[in-house]
């Protein structure tokens, strides 16, 4: 992330598009938009975020430090959400499905050395 202070209450951030998805940036900015004026743009390689603090009450350096932290958190969230969306959908479908709609055989073997199968009489 390249940070360029335009003045003490205005800064431009360039975030590598290969590292963070647009959704991650937006989810992060959602939480800052209440306190800062945020402009969002992109060029070929970066997302360009311009932050300004109209109240001139925040320390922009601190803000940017926590924003970096948030970006990492939101990227982690995105990884988890993406990787688990199928299992989550399945979980909820199973949770609200009627009784045996998704029944499967239990995992693993169960016999003793003399032979036992709970399905057979």
């Amino acid at each position, binding site marked *: 992330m390249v940070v360029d202070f335009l003045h003490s209450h205005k800064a431009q951030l360039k975030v590598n598009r290969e590292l963070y998805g647009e959704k991650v940036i937006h*989810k992060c900015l*959602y*939480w*800052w*938009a*209440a*306190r800062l004026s945020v402009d969002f743009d992109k060029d070929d390689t970066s997302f360009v975020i311009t932050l300004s603090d109209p109240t001139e009450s925040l320390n922009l350096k601190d803000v940017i430090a926590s924003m970096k932290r948030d970006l*990492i*958190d*939101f990227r*982690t*969230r995105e*990884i*988890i*959400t993406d*990787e*688990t*969306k*199928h*299992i*989550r959908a*399945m*979980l*909820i479908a*199973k*949770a*609200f499905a009627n009784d045996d709609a*998704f029944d*499967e055989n239990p*995992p693993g*073997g169960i*016999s*003793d*050395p*003399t*032979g036992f*199968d709970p399905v057979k009489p």
Partner: protein
Amino acid sequence: MELPIAKDFRKFKGPEFYEAEFSEYFLLPFKFHRINDEKEVLVNEVGDFLIVPIGTARRIASRDIQKDELLYEDLFANSFISNKPIPDLIDVLATRYRTKKSFLDDFTALHIFVVSLRCNHSCHYCQVSRVSENRQEFDISIEDLTSGIEHMFRSPSPSITMEFQGGEPLLAFDRVKFGVEYALKLNETFKKDITFVVCTNATVFTDEILEFCKEHQIIISTSLDGPEFLHNANRPKSGAKSYQMVIDGINRARNQLGEDQVSALMTTTSLSLEYPIEIIDNYIENGFSNIFLRPISPYGFALKNSKKNRYHTEKYLEFYKKGLKYIIELNKQGVFFVEDYTTIILKKILTPFPVSYVDLQSPAGMINNVVVFNYDGYVYATDESRMLAEQGDFTFRLGHVKDNYRSIFYGEKARFLSQYWSNESLAGCADCGLQSYCGADPVFHYAAQGDFEGYRPTSDFCIKNMEIIRHIFDLLDSDGKALMPIFNSWINNRPRYQ
């Protein structure tokens, strides 16, 4: 089935033999939230949590957790990671998920009947009942009350609560009496498990009223705001001392109905926010073993005055933490005293059971768990909805009691509201680590922000709940060993064994 060779089967094998074979673990759905400078809490899809060092979620996602770490076993056992894309125990997780959401199964349980807007008090924060005591047109009509009760019995829920509110409902005791008797008559056919509650200021009891309450095991829910000076300042009553009257009322009701039939709720005002300790002490002095440190209701105040609301939220959070700290100290000294809001959240965090508290659930409690029949025959989604209506906003009016059940409970309005009642799909909530323990409140967000969905960063609902839940985790992290027995005793509502 191929049989294992007996000799090999009975030969003891080392732990490594029982380790599942896989190269890299798979993630299961979970979220996380920072709880202090060092720790974050990981919360899985069914609400199980682990408090871990900050950065752990990132390490998990980047497959950085090693098998020989103790954390690895915890993550596995608590369904954060798995050795298969679909874990062998997915059915157990699904059952847990269904259980957590099972407050939905039975649909509406709490039916609030505003039997009268009349009141003998003129509390300045009251949004609804500024009507003098003698104007009968503010009582619900017997006809509307009848229709409302008939709707109540159309709810699929096997157990229902019929709650009488006002105004002061006991000023229209004939309505309460008719309501209880008619409900009991219908219940001879429906055989539901039915609880009656009267929310009263406890200043208008007569022998007849208390006899009736005793006969039908009606629970008295009254208002006590704390010490005399505070209660009286909050609840002016012309020519009488409200505090002494409510204490007399509480004692009288306890004597006739039994201790556990009488509960008290406090209403928080700006003035109350200065006196958390005094309020708690007052509850203890008056023989209560619990208190609900409620936030200031924004309804009726300049709802859209966000600065004032924010100020109240900040003050309230201080008030709550100070009060909670004091209550915890009391418990550590052996006094059994419960803070109700913390307990609601603890139940969500520490138990696998559904917690149906209408102001903090997802899907929201509105319609799903509560409905309000107003004195004028209109039906509202929540208690707050009818307060908005008193201010001229009928957004959450579901219909009239004379409409049919489907159109009220499953009608266009209900369907519209359903878009906004699950925090799983709200911006800001969808990714929040505390989502499982929180709720959605479209009525609040509509009222405060003019938007059913709401904007979380400035939402007082979000600021308040996020901070309270974070604070509870922070307590569990810093003092968990000492607090768990106390919190368990709150959850189970019984003094702890010492």
